[in-house]
């Protein structure tokens, strides 16, 4: 039987799972992702993790707990930097150590370090290191890596076409099945900014994307924007850019969308206890003040976010935007 590697359905899962899966499969390893977040996964996470960490890390703990008895290895890479410029949140940098030293009875952890600032081949080398865990030779790993890159490229292209990461993953599995959802009276378009692992974990985000769609709102996220457009935002008028990749992307997306002014509303989904968000949210808020023509709202999620409360706030916001838009149309 093939070796089984578990990948928690949290954090970078939402951006890199297809690539990781393709790589592991190519070197003959079976990949087992944890299931979708449930109440019991969240509760496990809350119990295992330090009370002071942010919700997404708690979720990560929960998913690790769910996998730990079922797999031979856990894949918890130390993702430091993937674009040669910005790093990930310091909690990503210490993630394998946090898990290793605070959860008992874990299977071996594959904790390769990925840091593309260390030279052109550093990512390939990181993947080779993974290959070595399973006795794959250099040629096989290189081939697997290239294949994985191909899958990743394809995945990103689907995202740019407007699919969300979970939808794009489905499409990769069985192409051609995707429908643009059965949306009825779509007349608004919102951007939901925030970390993919918060937005697309439908349990913790209380299903925000689906809820908005039901209210007749088309939803886009930063993943749907072409990276080149984001890169054009430079440092967003700041003396230095935000250090953290995902926060930087969200801020750039906010700047771009506010400037374009074509979107009907922007939501920032921020996680309770998130360090980088304390800066990011303030900066987005200040930008929003300069562009009053685009309605903006911050939503904070935590482990107790309730369905009802979220639904009410979203409905109120959508109503407000819709009325505003109609008023505008009448004036014209």
């Amino acid at each position, binding site marked *: 039987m093939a070796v089984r590697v578990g990948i928690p359905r949290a954090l970078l899962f939402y951006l890199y799972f297809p690539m990781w899966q393709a790589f592991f499969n190519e070197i003959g390893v079976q990949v087992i992702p944890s299931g979708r977040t449930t109440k019991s996964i969240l509760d496990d996470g809350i119990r295992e993790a330090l009370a*002071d960490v942010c919700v997404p890390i708690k979720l990560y703990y929960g998913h690790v707990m769910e996998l730990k008895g079922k797999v031979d290895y856990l894949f918890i890479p130390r993702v430091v930097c993937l674009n040669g410029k910005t790093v990930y949140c310091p909690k990503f940098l210490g993630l394998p150590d946090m898990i290793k030293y605070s959860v008992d009875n874990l299977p071996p952890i594959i904790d390769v370090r990925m840091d593309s600032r260390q030279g052109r081949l550093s990512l390939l080398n990181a993947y080779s290191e993974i290959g070595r865990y399973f006795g794959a030779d250099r040629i096989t790993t290189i081939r697997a890596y290239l294949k994985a890159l191909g899958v990743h490229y394809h995945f990103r292209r689907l995202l740019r076409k407007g699919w969300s990461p979970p939808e794009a993953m489905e499409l990769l599995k069985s192409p051609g099945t995707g429908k643009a959802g059965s949306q009825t009276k779509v007349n608004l378009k919102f951007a939901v900014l925030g970390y993919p692992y918060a937005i697309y974990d439908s349990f913790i985000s209380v299903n925000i994307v689906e809820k908005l769609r039901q209210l007749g709102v088309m939803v886009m996220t930063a993943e749907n924007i072409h990276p080149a457009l984001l890169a054009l935002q430079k440092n967003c008028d700041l003396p230095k850019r935000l250090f953290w990749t995902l926060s930087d992307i969200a801020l750039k997306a906010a700047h771009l969308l506010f400037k374009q002014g074509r979107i009907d509303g922007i939501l920032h989904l921020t996680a309770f206890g998130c360090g980088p968000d304390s800066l990011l949210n303030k900066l987005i808020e200040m930008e929003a003040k300069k562009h009053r023509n685009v309605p903006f709202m911050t939503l904070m999620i935590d482990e107790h976010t309730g369905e009802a409360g979220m639904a009410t706030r979203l409905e109120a916001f959508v109503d407000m935007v819709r009325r505003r838009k109609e008023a505008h149309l009448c004036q014209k």
Partner: protein
Amino acid sequence: MSKVTFPRMGESWRAFKLLLEDLGNEVVVPLRPNKRTLDLGVRHSPEFACFPLKILMGTYLEAVEMGAGTIVTSGGVGPCRAGEYAMLHHKILQDLGYDLKMIVFEPPRLYPLNFIKNVRALNKARVSIRGIIDCIKRGWRMLQALDNAEKLSHVVRPREIKRGTTTAVYKKVLDWISGAYTMEQIAEAEAAALEALRSIPQDSSREVLKVGIVGEIYVLLEPASNLEIEETLGDLGVEVERSMFLTGWTRDNTWNETTHGLTIKEAASPYLPELVGGHGRDSIGHTILYSKRGFDGIIQLAPFTCIPEIVARTILPRVSKDYDIPVLTFFLDEQTGKAGMTTRLEAFTDLMRRKKRFQAGAKCLTG
């Protein structure tokens, strides 16, 4: 020309004031953080900003009220938030309608030009390069003298016969040091200060526990932010050794890593091989080194929501078990109360004392 202010960290302001005045600036000395500072800071900072950012926000606002127009501070290159502080402070101040100048010092090794530019902007008296170097040397020497006095106070306080003497003497000698100007005067004041502290009546037979303090730099260096934990511990008969001093830290950052035989980095790397920003890795490394040196316990001080210290805190229980040393963590924010802290410290001291006596007893029996 606008008046200059800077972040306050413990007593270091005395040296910074000297340096900036030598360069021809009018200085607004930042106030010791108090209730109002916190209120102001909390009101104008994002809710989940780290505690140091909030306090500094309050400090700056107070300095602005006192007429400061330029803020000199440090930058940083991540991966933690501290490097972005200056920028956020500036933005918030602008948003409140204050037109201020921010002079941000980045690590000189990476940004030598930034350093030169900033020094020139601050050099209003047009001091020559040689003169600037002289001023910096003197400021540095004063910082060292201040640190040495503080270190000694940590040793003397738990042994003093009459409670409160050390604190009173320490306050007095600080003024001696900051009153000095030339190199010789500083050295002289330092010697006198150390002598005064040493000659405080002490009880040498007292059983004194030794505790290492690790954690994030700002809450370690600014007693107002940690509710004078060192004083409280001293009164409980505990000698503290703090893992960080401005002179120690700056040396690490501008020159090379310090050596304790084993560097802090090496000590920490089995548990946390990655630099997670702030002082998370140092907290782990120092804990291990302190335990090797036979300390009785460790106290970790961390600002609420501090990312690197949260990472360290997650790993520390394991270190504590492996090295058999008790560790107590305080996450500090504006709601932390002194009474609660003292209670926890008393319990912790009891625990260490019992452990120490038990081990001593065990040694007697087996030996």
